[in-house]
C-alpha cells in the first residue's frame, strides 16, 4: 500500500515537472566534460526559486578553486569534528 502511494506521488511530481518546463529554449554555452559547447539549456522555474530562497549563490562563492582555501577549510573542519567527537 505504501509502495503504491509513494509511486503515485513520485509519478505525479514527474508529470508536474515536465509540464512546468517552459517551451522557450535559451541558447547558452554549457560545459560538457570541461569543454564549452553550444547546447540547448531549458529554463527552469524550480531552480530559480530554490536558489533564491536558500541563498545558494553566496554559498557557492566559498568554492573559490583555490587550494589554500580548500586545505584550510578541511583542516579546520577536521580539528573541529575531532573535538566534537571526543566530547560526545
Amino acid at each position, binding site marked *: 500500500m*505504501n*509502495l503504491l502511494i*509513494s*509511486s503515485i506521488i*513520485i*509519478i505525479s*511530481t*514527474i508529470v508536474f*515537472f515536465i509540464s512546468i*518546463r517552459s517551451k522557450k529554449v535559451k541558447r*547558452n554555452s*554549457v*560545459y*560538457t*566534460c*570541461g*569543454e564549452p*559547447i553550444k*547546447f*540547448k*539549456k*531549458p529554463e*527552469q522555474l*524550480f*531552480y530559480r526559486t*530554490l*536558489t533564491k530562497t*536558500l541563498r*545558494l*549563490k553566496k*554559498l*557557492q562563492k*566559498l*568554492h573559490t*578553486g583555490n*587550494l589554500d582555501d*580548500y*586545505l584550510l*577549510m*578541511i*583542516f579546520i*573542519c*577536521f580539528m573541529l*569534528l*575531532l573535538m*566534537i*567527537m*571526543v566530547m*560526545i
Partner: protein
Amino acid sequence: MIAAYSIPLLISVSFILLVFKNGKIIKTLSILSIFFSLCFVLFSSVNVFYSGIGTFAVSGFRPPFGIVLVLDKFSSSIASLILFLSLMIVAFSSNFVKEKIKEFHTLLLLAVAGSLGIVMTGDIFNMFVFTEIMSVATYALVGFATRKKNLEAAFKYLIIGSVSTAFMLIAIVLVYSQLGTLNMADIIVKINLNDKILKIIFSMFLLSFCVKSAIFPFYIWKPDVISGSLEPVATFLVGVVSTTTVYVIIRVLYTILGVYYSTWLSVLAIMTMGLGAFFALLQDDIKRILAYGSISQLGYIFLAFSSSLIFQGLYHLANNAIIETLLFLSIGTIPLHKKRIEKVSMYGFLLGALSLTGIPPLNAFFSKFFIIAGLLENKLFLYAIISGLISIVTLFYYMKVYFMFKKGEKRIYWPVIILIAFVLLLSFAPVWLQFFEGIEDDLLARYEYVIGVLKP
C-alpha cells in the same frame, strides 16, 4: 584462499604490460587479468558463504604477528563489486585512450590492486600501504592527459589526499603505541572503548577516510578533481574509490569499534545529502553535476549506516556504485561522438537517473524506500522527511543533464549494456534482500570475525 593471489596477479601484470608495444595485446592482457582475479574472488567468496571466514597468512606468519588477508561475506561481496566495475571501466577505456595505452593500463591495474587490497586486508598498516598504492595511482591517472585542468586537478587531489593519509598514518602509529598490535582482530580483543585516547585515535582514522570519501565538510575537492579528469578516470573515482572508502569507514565503525549508532555521522550525512543536491542544481558542467550528485548519494549510504540500517545501506551501496558507473560511462560517449551522446547510452543514462531518483520498479527506489522506512521505524522522522524531499531534488538535476543531450549515431558499447542489464537485474529486490540480510548478520558478528581470523 585463492582470492589472495589476485593482488599479486594484478600488480605483476601491470608491470609486464610495460614490455609490450602492441595496443591490442595490452588491452586483452589487462582485461584478462582483472577477469581472472574476479573469478578468483568469486570462487573463494562461494567458499566464504558456505563455510565461514577465509584467511591467508602472507609469508606464513601466524595472524596476530604477520600480515593477514581476510575475506568474510561483506569484504568478498565488496571485492567482487569493485572488480566487476573496474572490468567494465577497463573495457570501456580501451576505446577512449588512444595514446600512452600501456601507461594508462598499468596505472589503472595498480589502482584496482590497491583498492582490492584495502578491501581484503586484515591489518591496518597494510591498509595504509594499499591506500597509498591506490591513491598514488589515481593521482597519476587524474593528471594523465597533461592539459591545464588535468594537472591542476591532480595537484589538488595529491595535496589533499596526502594530508589525509598523513592523518591516517599518525592514527596508526598511535594505535601501535597504545595497543602494541596492528592486526584488526587483535585490536578488537585488546581495545577498551572507554579510553579517551583510543577514542581520539580512531576518530582521527575515521575522519581521514571521511576526507577521502568526500562527505560534508570535506567534499570540496571532489567536483574539481572529477571535472578535471578523463571520463574513465572519473568513473573509477566515483565507482570504485568511493566504494572502498565507504567500506573502510563501515569496517572500522562496525567491526573494530562496534558502534552502530553515531549521531555525528548521521548529521554529516544529512548535510552531505542536502548540499550535494543543491549545489548540483547550480552547475553548468555535466561532470560537475554528476560529481555533486554522487556526493549526495553518498549521504544516503552514510545515513543508513549511521542509524544502523545495515542491509538497506548495503543494497544502496551496491546500487549506487553500479548506477554511478553507468551514468559516467554513458556521458563518456560524448567526446567519442563529436560532442553528441550515443543513443543506447542516452537511454542508459535515463534509466540510471530515474532509478537514483526513486522511480518505483527500479533498483535504487527499493533501497531508498527501505532506508526511509527504516528511519521511520527508528522514529527518526526529520531524517526521513529530509531524505525523501532531497530524493525529489535529485530528479531535477539529473533531468537537467538529460535535456542537455544531443543524440548521436548508434554504436554498441558493451560495458554500458552490461551495466544496464545489471541495473535491471538488481531491481528484483526480494531476492537481493535475503543476500544482503545474510551479509548484515555477518557484519554484526564481531566475535566470530575475531575467532575466524585468530583461530585460537
